[in-house]
């Protein structure tokens, strides 16, 4: 282990000692579930550990709050996605159902795509995916979605912006 890494773990160790209990209590108050709160708090510290420059953390509690809040949202959202995905599976022939492992991997990917496109309208998401995954032209997309070509172009711009923002603010 390098000196630098030692230093990093030392710093995070300090934060962990002084703020882990505080964070658990806070998340628990928001979620109303002590075990879930401990999971979230632990995962939060794992994310802090993965940060490129922990030495630059000036307000640990604000950072912990932000990360924990995001994890809560992600957890809820993942349940929503899984529920919706299972709904679509229920309508497909049994033979085409993926195995549990495949399903898990797919859900990971879906959660990532969902995060990139979060906040876009259903039509904007559809337009972007038809273009990126299927290579449809703006005109074909416009016909499918019953909107003008210039509207499709704006959906694309909205989506590019949203993806970019989601990428730079992980």
């Amino acid at each position, binding site marked *: 282990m390098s000196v630098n890494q030692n230093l990093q773990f030392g710093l995070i160790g300090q934060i962990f000692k002084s703020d882990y209990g505080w964070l658990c209590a*806070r998340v628990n*108050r*928001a979620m109303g579930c002590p075990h879930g709160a401990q999971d979230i708090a632990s995962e939060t510290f794992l994310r802090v550990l993965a940060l490129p420059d922990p030495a630059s953390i000036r307000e640990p509690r*604000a950072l912990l*709050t*932000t990360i924990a*809040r995001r994890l*809560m*949202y992600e957890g*809820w*959202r993942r*349940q*929503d*996605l899984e*529920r*919706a*995905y299972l*709904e*679509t*599976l229920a309508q*497909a022939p049994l033979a085409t159902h*993926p195995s549990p492992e*495949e399903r898990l*991997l*797919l859900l990971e*990917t*879906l959660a*990532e*795509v*969902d995060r*990139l*496109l979060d906040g876009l309208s*259903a039509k904007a*998401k*559809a337009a972007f*995916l*038809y*273009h*990126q*995954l*299927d290579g449809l*032209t*703006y005109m074909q997309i416009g016909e499918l979605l019953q909107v003008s*070509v*210039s509207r499709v*172009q*704006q959906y*694309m*711009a*909205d989506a*590019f*912006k949203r*993806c*970019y*923002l989601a*990428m*730079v603010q992980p």
Partner: protein
Amino acid sequence: MNGVTADEVIIDEAAQWMALLQSGHASPEEHQAFGQWSNADPRRAEIFRAMGAGLGVLENDKLRRMPRESLLHTLNAPSGRRRFVRNALSLVGLVSTAGLVARLTDVWPQPGLLTTSTGERLSLTLADGSALMLDARSKVLERFDQERRLLQLLDGKLLVDVARDSHRPFIVETSQGQMRALGTRFLVEQNDGQTGISMLHSQVQIRTRNGAVQVIRAGERAVFDADRILELRPSTGAESAWTEGLLEVRDQSLGVLIESLRNYRRGIIRVSPAAENLRLSGIFPLDDTDRALQLLAGSLPVKVDYHSPYWVSIDVR
């Protein structure tokens, strides 16, 4: 701070260029214009490159093989968080304990938080029967309990028609202070460290954050900051135009008008410094901003250039 703002503009512009170039229908002139745009600032080129590069997750085979209908259905799953907010609004009794934890600037997920986005106005009935209307790009937190009915206006504008409840006062709170009513109808807006309130019916008591008190009556308008009442005068009626989907200005600068229009228009509006200070009066439709831009081009010596439907620049003629 400046760097952040500049990046925001570049990201908007880069996304517009990306969408245009990927359409496959960009003209040679547009390609040239893009070259000029991107060469003028290395940060532009950098953001544009990153925007195109980072979509690796879409290469995933499993995702590509997934039937599109199933994929879209999943991604459009309603968000449990939003459901949570809706439920919280109907179960106000349960929300009150959360008030002990939450503060105005708190960042935790908050039940009772209502927001509107660009071009969106929201009308709803609160748990006590009061009618609330939110302007575009506004944010309000509803915190009712046994003792009082509190609405925290965090951003934007609201109109409230307060249902009578002689036991619980109705309070609208901004960063600058509180406005307290029993039963009445009034408008509140918050921006730039000031709060404006216009009374439509009955009366309200203002208490600024630092304790200045003022009662205002129907037909009056007051503006205050945390310390004191800055302005008290008869209301012109223009303040409530947004509730009808209109924007009413009387001898205001074009810059101020465009700022209001931005809440209703997606995309970029650029106003040149020379055009910004021109003054005008008039009534403009908020829900049809193309028409609004056309109207102001008719009443001022300006030209409105559409770089694309979503990228407009305004300059003096």
